[in-house]
């Protein structure tokens, strides 16, 4: 069974996902990695701003807001509940 991969932007508020990879390159990529978004990191979508963008995510113990132009570049997959 394979688990579908999708863009972090699509993660609904309250949902958890695991980072698979980052499509961005250069400085944006560096910045996202620096924020702790390395493969296997668990991310939670915490809340949406009124306009729906940016969205606040819980990443390794800190709440960080990402714009959809950044979160679109982050590939994740759903956490399998056990």
């Amino acid at each position, binding site marked *: 069974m394979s688990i579908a991969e999708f863009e972090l932007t699509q993660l609904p508020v309250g949902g958890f996902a695991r980072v698979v990879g980052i499509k961005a390159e250069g400085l944006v990529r560096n910045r996202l990695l*620096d924020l702790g978004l390395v493969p296997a990191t668990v991310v939670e979508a915490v809340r949406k701003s009124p306009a729906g963008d940016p969205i606040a995510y819980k990443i390794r*113990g800190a709440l960080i807001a990402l714009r959809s132009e950044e979160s679109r570049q982050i590939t994740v997959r759903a956490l399998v509940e056990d």
Partner: protein
Amino acid sequence: MGLTTQSTGIYAFVEEMHQDPNFNTDAVIALAGNPNTGKSTVFNGLTGLNQHTGNWPGKTVVLAKGIYEHRGKKITLVDLPGTYSLLANSADEQVARDFICFGNPDATVVVADATCLERNLNLVLQVMEITPKTILCLNLIDEAKRKAIRIDRNGLERLLGIPVVPTVARDKGGLAELENTIHEVALGKRQMNPRQTIYHQAIEEALRELQAELEEVLQGKLNSRWVALRLLDGDSSIIDEIRRYLITSTTQVGKEV
């Protein structure tokens, strides 16, 4: 005098610091850390009221420096802007990076939030890559305890190869030990053996090649492994700054001779 490369950025800041008539210090310590780690609380706890804030020439970044005395030595602390990294490109990060790389601090203290250590260690490793004289200050250790986070300090010291000091800067807890550790590291009384990040084999091979050539150019002025890594990154802002640093330091050597 017009603005030259020597009179802006890091050089102006360091020069101004040394020209201050009240400035006679035995060691200069850089204080780095992620935002919201209590870095400024550590700074205030150590220096009390003996501090000045100043603008980093050429950039709208405010820097505070302060002085304290420990065992008869005058120690100058420079409070750098809070950053997650030294590699990306905001003005804050450039200032922090330039000071640690080119300001020749006698030691660099990285203040980390003990409640989310993982995300803080990225900066620690980056600083260790530049300078072996790195100290990790684990702040907010009381809050970590409250959240049932236990940190194996000895294990961390062994893994990183640098001194680790837990503090509760708000209540001045651990600051005496931090002062002792800074003293030992800055004045060369403690043997440092920081763990090096080992990269993919292909990168390591490229590094070896570059390093051999760089040693000649750098003549010990900068860490050749670190410069080789930045060349591989191809980040032009760092490469420009390295070039400037080498030109400036060569002119200064020329003046002395």
